[in-house]
């Protein structure tokens, strides 16, 4: 594996808030990453510092081994259309794509045209007058058709309906298969994107709390479902991160990979094992981590991720 992005103790402080707190990670070539976390966790800040749109308070970043600031060679390999992207006055989507074509060496106009059809984007309307979903589509099309070596998608689905979101996921995977590249997708709709992601980086309050392969994350926990007394017997001595009971049936999420021995015991006890959704696991571990550090805040109102998990 080749490392394309290297981040070393990156910190970003705005007057009185610490948006990014001493973060270090690496991004490998030709992999799809999920940058997950709640609103305001620091996702957009990290991406805008990586693309030299914003500046670190301290810490070091290297893109292809170089500093991206004012570095045309490195910057032209990256595409980052932010969620609240501004466009020139009176520009239409057609103008925006024409400009993107000038600056992105791998721009594929046919692909862009196909995406415009897929999203039914009105290309002659001024961008100011587009709906939120159509505005997101402009960003998504630039991100996909630019085929930049490193592409960032910042909450790309805002305002897109379920069909349009599926189109985005499908096109991203199809195109990624043909033209492998590094994709960093920031999102808080974790389950919806979880099938795309090869690795997840979870960021919370400016710190990275998880940086793992998606499959490894999934194996980290399991849902044990069955008769309450049998479940309790099985989970004795294990770390429980979540529990729900309905009548005499309980569903308990336990941390730790299940061994062959465990599986045999479960079958004997008539218990079922259900996979844990990535979203639930991340929500539970986030809450777990927060609870462990400050259990007084356990009554904190539900976050966006949390609401998503309950939907």
């Amino acid at each position, binding site marked *: 594996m080749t490392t394309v992005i290297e981040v070393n103790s990156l910190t970003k402080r705005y007057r009185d808030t610490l948006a990014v707190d001493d973060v270090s990670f690496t991004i490998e070539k030709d992999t799809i990453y999920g940058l997950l976390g709640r609103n305001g966790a620091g996702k957009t800040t990290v991406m805008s510092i990586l693309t030299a749109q914003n500046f670190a308070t301290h810490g070091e970043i290297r893109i292809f081994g170089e500093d991206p600031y004012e570095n045309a060679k490195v910057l032209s390999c990256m595409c*980052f259309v932010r969620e609240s992207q501004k466009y020139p006055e009176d520009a239409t989507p057609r103008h925006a794509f024409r400009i993107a074509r000038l600056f992105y060496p791998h721009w594929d106009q046919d692909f862009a045209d196909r995406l415009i059809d897929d999203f039914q984007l009105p290309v002659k309307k001024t961008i100011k007058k587009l709906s939120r979903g159509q505005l997101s589509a402009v960003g998504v099309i630039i991100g996909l058709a630019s085929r930049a070596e490193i592409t960032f998608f910042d909450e790309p689905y805002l305002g897109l309906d379920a069909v349009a979101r599926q189109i985005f996921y499908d096109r991203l995977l199809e195109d990624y298969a043909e033209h492998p590249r590094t994709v960093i997708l920031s999102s808080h709709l974790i389950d919806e994107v979880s099938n795309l992601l090869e690795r997840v980086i979870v960021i919370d309050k400016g710190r990275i709390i998880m940086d793992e392969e998606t499959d490894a994350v999934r194996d980290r926990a399991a849902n044990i479902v069955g008769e309450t007394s049998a479940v309790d017997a099985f989970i004795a001595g294990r770390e429980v991160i979540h529990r729900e009971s309905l009548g005499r049936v309980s569903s308990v999420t336990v941390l730790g990979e299940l061994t062959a021995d465990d599986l045999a015991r479960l079958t004997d006890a008539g218990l079922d094992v259900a996979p844990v959704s990535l979203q639930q696991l991340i929500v539970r571990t986030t809450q777990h981590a927060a609870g462990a550090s400050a259990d007084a805040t356990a009554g904190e109102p539900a976050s966006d991720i949390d609401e998503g998990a309950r939907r």
Partner: protein
Amino acid sequence: MNRTLNVIRMQLVNRQTYLWVPVIILSGSLVISLAIYGIIAGAGVTEPIYGGGAQAPLWYFAVVGAQALTLTFPFSQAMSVTRREFYLGTLLTAGATAALLAIIFVAGGLIEQATNGWGMNGYFFYLPWIWEAGPAAAGLFFFALASMFFVVGFWGATIFKRFGATVLTIVILGIGLLLVGLLWLVGRLDAWMQVFAWIGDQGALGLTLWGLLLIAVLAGTSYLTLRRTVP
């Protein structure tokens, strides 16, 4: 270099801002001025008539300068354009459009001289004190003036974008106070005669060169501000 030239194409991709709106403003104010001259000439006035309508597109340049930054800079960042490329490309665009405007003004002035002020001794483009050093100097004057309006708009917008509205207001008030202080000083030293004499000595060409110096200072500070501006 290629990417800097592409910034020019980025700024010009929407013909509205840089081409059609100035053309509409210029021809609109020309038509209105000529209509007024017509009325005045029709009333039997034979003195040459001069108007300030030609300023209209120049003011628009300040707006374009501000918009080139506030709206196009964030987009240029999404296009992975460096700040230097954006800056150079945008100033080249401004210079090219200012040059085009200057050519139109000179051509208009030559037509007015040839037609004796559209046959009614009314002048829109031709102002004697600007033209006293010849058409080339007049062209340079218009070029510098249009560039200055653009750079002032651009300069204000970079300060706004980097430091916010409060700082921009303080800077503008500070410059205002400085100018008032200068006026007071000139009055105090009883030096108004010398000041006017100096301005008279400079002529349109001399003032143009001082204007170019001011443009260079504003453009330089804009670049230093832009280097650390976040879209």
